[in-house]
Structures are given as structure tokens and as C-alpha cells.
């Protein structure tokens, strides 16, 4: 069964070729590929073997899994998940404890070098990784072991991709991202807190469909979904350009849908698919419901100053430094002033007046 292609799986489930065509069209659209690629999608889906997937959860809040299980387009998603064999997922699997760990080790051995490793959550390094363990194994050790036999790694959520909340100052557990530890395997970062469900499914679908990594940006994010900033795709953008800004969350401007920059929107520096894909099956997205983007798909977004402070304002207060600088500057100025006066006085004192006698010498 493990050798079946996706097309065969679909056939076995009584899905006609028309259904397959539809599946390919929807997948192509989900992957943000041009419709002409549907043929290529169909072609590779017809050939691809069902890949094994191991999902590891480290320091995380399960929000990413929550988001994933709420993915829209259930039939497509369920088909994709039928097509992968999710061999190990803490939250979703029935087994637990040592039985679960055995299952993980078993499937790792069976598909060594071929499985896709999905990770959510960051990895604590401080104090020997004591802050998060599973069945007595530290997250660091488990990641290193699982990564060794993986074909590729998908870091789901900002914690796995960039460290996320656990990594926020002062980072008590010494949390780091997957890419900080694993250097020798291809890693796809799918950040977001949580990531948009359709994006997670889309990235997995891409891997399943083509068996290869999508085109990534310099932070390891698939360009198809993270290529553009929220600000560039924001429907409030015309107001930004006209200089019309809401000043509070309930003033006339806010009600008229004006730009949320002043209220702290981080859309200009955030790359994510929210503005086009939207949330909850295309119902709405944060900016549409009146709240600025908090930049959840970017590194260190927790430490990027207040969520409600405009992007152009300082992250930390500079008042202390400013006051100190003025004081030191004033003191130094006074000191130089005194020194100058002394020099003047000295010059005057040392000034030798020329007398008649001098000249007659």
C-alpha cells in the first residue's frame, strides 16, 4: 500500500478522472501556481509515491495544529492527508507514551532518508535542554535524531521557524529555531502565529505533488505565500497613500476603514498571505476586522516594540539615554569652556609687552 501513487489512492476511493482533474485544478490554485500548471500537477500526482511524515512538537502551544485541523476545503485537505502517512503526531495520534515513541522509531527506521519531518515549537537549549522533554528525551536530541533520516524538514509556525514566543526576551529557556540547530538538511519555514491553514496545506501539497522544495526567500519561506508584504496586498492601502489614518480603534476614520498604521500596523514589514488568502475559509483577516497586523510571520515580532506603536517609532525608550547625553554634553561643554578661558587668561598673562628698553637693547 505504501507504494501506491496518489492517483491510485484516489481511484481506489472511487474518484473518477473528472474528480482527479478537479482535484488538480484546486491543488494548483491552492499552490498559487498558474492554471496552466494543472497538467504538471496531474502528471506528478499520478507518479508520486505516498511519502511518510513524522510530526514533532516541541515548545509550542498547539495553536499551529489547531489552525491546521481547521483548514478550509476539507475534501482536498483530507485527500492530501490520506495521501501522506502521518506516522507520528503527538496531538493527533491515539497512541501515547512509550508506545508512541516506539511507533516513531519504527517508522523512522522503515523510511530512513525518505520521510518528511514536520516540526512545530522551538527547541530549548539552556540547562541541557531540561525545559522540554518527551518520554525523557530532550527536544534537542529528538530533533537531531529525527532530522538525520529526513529528506526535508518543514518548520511550522514562528516558534519552529524563528524561535517565536519562547525566544522572546529574556528567553529564559534558551529557545532557538530548527534552522539554528540543523544545518545539513533542506528546511522550509512556514511561519505565522499560527500560520494560515491554507498556507500550511499548500506547502505540504507542494512537497507531495512535486516531491521537491518550493522556491524560498532568504528567510526560508515559500515565495508563493510569503513573497509579498501584507501592506502591498492590503485593501486599506489607498488610504495609506492618501494619508488617511485612523487615530483610535473607534473613531470615524476607523469606521470608514482608514489605514491602521498609526495604531501600530506592522503590515509594511510583514510577509504573509493573510491579505489574499484570508482566514476562516476566506471570511476575513485581521486588518479587515479592524486590527493592525502584528507581524506574526517575521522573526522577533514579540520584541519589535509594542503591537500598538507605529512602525516608525523607537522600540525602546530613548529618554534616559537622551537626558544622560545632554547632561554629559553640558558638563563637557562647560569643562571645555573653562579650559578655553584659562587658556585665554594664560595667554594674556604670558603676553610680553615690548618696552622701549627692549627695543634699545
Amino acid at each position, binding site marked *: 500500500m505504501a507504494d501506491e501513487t496518489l492517483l491510485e489512492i484516489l481511484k481506489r476511493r472511487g474518484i473518477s478522472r473528472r474528480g482527479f482533474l478537479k482535484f488538480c485544478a484546486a491543488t494548483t490554485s491552492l499552490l498559487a501556481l498558474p492554471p496552466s500548471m494543472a497538467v504538471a500537477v496531474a502528471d506528478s500526482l499520478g507518479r508520486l509515491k505516498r511519502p511518510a511524515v513524522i510530526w514533532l512538537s516541541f515548545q509550542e502551544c498547539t495553536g499551529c495544529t489547531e489552525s491546521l485541523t481547521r483548514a478550509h476545503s476539507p475534501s482536498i485537505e483530507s485527500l492530501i492527508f490520506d495521501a501522506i502517512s502521518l506516522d507520528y503526531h503527538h496531538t493527533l495520534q491515539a497512541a501515547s507514551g512509550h508506545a508512541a515513541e516506539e511507533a516513531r522509531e519504527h517508522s523512522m527506521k522503515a523510511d530512513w532518508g525518505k520521510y518528511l519531518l514536520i516540526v512545530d515549537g522551538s527547541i530549548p537549549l539552556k540547562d541541557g535542554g531540561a525545559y522540554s522533554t518527551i518520554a525523557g528525551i530532550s527536544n534537542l536530541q529528538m530533533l537531531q535524531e529525527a532530522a538525520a533520516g529526513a529528506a526535508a524538514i518543514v518548520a511550522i509556525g514562528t516558534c519552529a521557524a524563528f524561535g517565536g514566543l519562547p525566544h522572546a526576551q529574556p528567553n529564559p529557556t534558551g529557545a532557538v529555531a530548527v534552522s539554528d540547530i540543523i544545518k545539513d538538511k533542506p528546511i522550509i519555514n512556514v511561519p505565522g502565529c499560527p500560520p494560515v491553514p491554507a498556507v500550511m496545506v499548500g506547502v505540504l501539497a507542494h512537497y507531495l505533488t512535486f516531491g521537491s522544495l518550493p522556491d524560498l526567500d532568504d528567510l526560508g519561506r515559500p515565495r508563493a505565500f510569503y513573497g509579498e508584504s501584507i501592506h502591498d496586498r492590503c485593501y486599506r492601502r489607498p488610504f495609506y497613500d*492618501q494619508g488617511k*489614518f485612523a487615530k483610535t480603534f473607534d473613531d470615524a476614520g476607523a469606521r470608514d476603514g482608514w489605514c491602521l498604521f498609526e495604531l501600530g500596523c506592522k503590515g509594511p514589514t510583514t510577509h504573509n498571505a493573510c491579505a489574499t488568502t484570508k482566514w476562516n475559509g476566506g471570511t476575513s483577516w485581521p486588518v479587515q476586522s479592524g486590527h493592525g497586523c502584528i507581524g506574526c510571520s517575521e522573526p*522577533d515580532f514579540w520584541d519589535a*516594540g509594542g503591537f500598538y506603536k507605529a512602525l516608525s517609532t*523607537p522600540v525602546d525608550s*530613548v529618554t534616559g539615554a*537622551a537626558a544622560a547625553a545632554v547632561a554629559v554634553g*553640558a558638563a*563637557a561643554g562647560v569643562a571645555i569652556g573653562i579650559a578655553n*578661558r584659562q587658556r585665554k587668561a594664560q595667554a594674556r598673562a604670558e603676553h610680553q609687552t615690548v618696552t622701549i628698553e627692549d627695543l634699545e637693547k
Partner: protein
Amino acid sequence: MSAMELLLWARGPGLGIAVAIFLFGMTLRLFEIYSLGRKTDLAAPRSPTPGSGWRTVFSRSLPYQGTWHRSGLTVITGFVFHIGLFIVLLFLLPHIKLIHSLTGLSWPALPTSLVDLVTVLTLIALLVVLVHRLMDPVKRLLSGFGDYLAWAVTFLPLLTGYMAYHHLLLDYTLLLALHILSAELLLVVFPFTKLTHTFTLFIARWYNGDIAARKGVAS
């Protein structure tokens, strides 16, 4: 270091350092200048001086007929880029937000598209000024490293700001970081170059106006 980390550094520690150096330098400079002092003029003034110093502060902003004829280009480009800088710096919303968060002061912004236009004009004026400085033998002779440095640190924030707004060449996050860093460079260099004229010009003009009045040529 990613673009986002650079931006966070620029908006955090970088800004603190730049503001501190700027304030330290400027306070030092002003104290230094004031404490030099001048000898009291014991002669009776030829004409009454009150107001003459203040009037000069403003009247010197207008070019004399002669200057106008001799170097019209310098006068025009000078006006354009000074006024342009002033508008861009003080009337773009993100800048107002920054000033507000630093000082608590705030005022209405101009439409972004207008500021955008002004930026282009200012950039052009600054380029003309540079070319003229390089071509004109007298100006070239008079210019030293400090002058070109002052020009560069004024030009860069405008250029990076313009590029960031229009998403030219580089990613917005990186451009925004570079923009803030270039403005911070301006702040750092400010007290130690001729850029201090932003503040010292008022002192100098007042003194000149006042002394001229004492000698009988009140403005």
C-alpha cells in the same frame, strides 16, 4: 543578520546611540560656543540696536540682488532642498509619529503623495548642488571632505526613504532599516560637521545683525 533584525536594531539600540551622540555633541558645541564669549563693547552704539539682531536672522534668508544675479542656480536649488527637507522631515506621517513618541508633540501630516513629490524635487536639487560643486572651480577649491560628507548624509536618508516607499531594488524591510540607519548616521555626524549650521546660524546672524547696528548699519 536578517533585515528584520537590522530593522529592530535600528529602531532600538541604534536610535538610542544616535540620539545620545547627537544630543551630547550639540550640547557640547553650543556650550563651547557660548562660553567663548565676547568682550563687552564699551563704545556707545551708533544706532539703537534692539531688534536688529532678530531682524537679521530673517532678512539674511533672502538673497541680495547681486547674489541672485551672480548665482541664481545656487539660490534656487538651495531654497528647494532646504524647504523640501523641512517638509519631508516634519510633515510625513511616520516622521510625525516618531517625533510624537520622542517628544509628545504632534501636528497634522501632509498627504503622502505630496511629500513624495517634494522628495523627488529635493533629491534633484541636491544632485544639482553636488554637480555644481564639482564643476565650479571656485566651489571645488573651497570644498573639503566635511562638505561631501555633509552632502552624503543628507542625501542618503532621502534616497533610502524614497526607495523604501516605492519598493525599489531591495526588500521594504531592508530598505526601511537602511533608511533609519542612514538618518541615524546623519544624527551622529551632525554635531561634528557644518550641518551644525541648522542651529548655529541663528546665533551667528543675530550677532552679526547686532554688531552691524552698533556700527551704524541697523537692518
